[in-house]
């Protein structure tokens, strides 16, 4: 089955690109190809073995038999030491969970650990596969804000997949709208303002505009 066909993606270096489209349009497949997990494709993709990749999967995918600290440090960059760990954990609000096992954490906390692990790897490219799915709204909202803060301080080239337009507007500086599968690019929307400075009002306005311009796209 072909999930993606004739797709050309323009991703901003050091930017936050969001791929958005109806469910089943092949977003996750694109991410898996970029992550080097799906090799059944033809075309040009930046060679995975030439760059470090950090991934936040839909499920946290932590090692249940290692404490949070080890989960993050196992795949962390060589330069990422204890001081960096404490700073990042503080930022993400997981400092008190460092010596606990993942099984003791709520899904929201486990997601934060997964995000910490991805940033700790100091990747050249960060891939996020609907990292806030199946969280209640307030928790998801809190996590999105945390992500904006952590990301803004590091500016790693990031590609995120979601089907939540509001989330896309809140987090990204470029939105790539995909068509129903096999996925093709329908539109590219750049958002000039800084993620950190975006307010409710602006997000609401853009959301309304995009919903109007691309009906049935999300």
């Amino acid at each position, binding site marked *: 089955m072909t999930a993606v066909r004739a797709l050309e993606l323009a991703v901003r270096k050091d930017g936050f690109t969001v791929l958005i489209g109806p469910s089943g349009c092949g977003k996750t497949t694109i991410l898996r190809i970029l*992550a*080097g*997990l799906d090799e059944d494709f033809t075309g040009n993709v930046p060679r995975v073995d030439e760059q*470090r*990749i*950090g*991934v936040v*999967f839909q*499920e946290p*995918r932590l*090692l*249940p*038999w*290692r404490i949070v600290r*080890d989960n993050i440090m*196992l*795949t962390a960059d060589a330069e990422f030491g204890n001081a960096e760990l404490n700073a990042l954990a503080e930022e993400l609000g997981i400092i008190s969970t460092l010596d606990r*096992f993942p*099984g*003791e*954490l*709520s899904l929201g906390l486990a997601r934060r650990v997964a995000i910490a*692990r991805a940033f700790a*790897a100091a990747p050249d490219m960060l*891939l996020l596969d609907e990292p806030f799915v199946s969280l209640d709204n307030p928790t998801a909202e809190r996590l999105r804000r945390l992500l904006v803060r952590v990301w803004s301080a590091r500016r790693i080239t990031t590609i995120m997949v979601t089907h939540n337009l509001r989330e896309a507007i809140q987090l990204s500086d470029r939105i790539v709208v995909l068509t129903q599968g096999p996925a093709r690019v329908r539109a590219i929307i750049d958002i000039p303002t800084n993620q950190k400075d975006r307010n409710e009002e602006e997000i609401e306005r853009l959301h309304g505009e995009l919903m109007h311009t691309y009906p049935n796209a999300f």
Partner: protein
Amino acid sequence: MSNRLYSILSGLAILVVWALAAQIFANRLLPGPLQVLQFMSEEIRSGDLIWHLVITLCRVAAVYFVAMTIGSVVGLAMGRSRKVDRILDPWLIVLLNIPALVVIILAFVWVGLTEVAAISAVAINKIPNVVVTLREGARALDPGLDEMAKTFRMSRSDVLRHVTLPQLQPYFAAASRSGLALIWKIVLVVELLGRSNGVGFQIHLYFQLFDVTGILAYTIAFVFVMLFVEILLVQPLEQRASRWRIKPA
């Protein structure tokens, strides 16, 4: 009254029934617990009991090591690759269905009454069980964690140590547990048939003398040793390995 107390009382009841039966029948072929205990202490003082226990334990350990190593490698290969599974499955089915006794006899006939024959005979009996258990384990490995390890470029040794082995640990534990129980019983048969030392050999000796006291003394001594191995070695290791299995907060 706690459940533990029931267990202890029930255990004591075995001794009481045994002692009573020995009293009632008053026969040389059914010695009481005290007689057996006395014989045991004599054998311990002479050093015989310890010597034969150690010999048997060494054989159990050797078989355990060989069977777990070969069984794990084959089981993991079969669980990971459909092709290997298809190729080796008939062998596995044949081995699983050959009676232990036949393997032992054939090993002694073909290889001779040697230590190698004894150990391999028991190992061949045990290996199929390890293979089946570890194959299950390999099939149950979480592909999500594998992908995580792959994208984060974990080294092969890290993947093995932190991702694969912890997932297989319950299967190793299950294979070890059922393995030890099976191995020591078969080792006694091997010793009875073709070795000149070990607990099995002693039981054979006392069987020929129709000395039930001796048979019971050696059997009970060895059962206790294996219980101690279970309580002092297997259980603590398992507990340590499953520390992380805590209920979510």
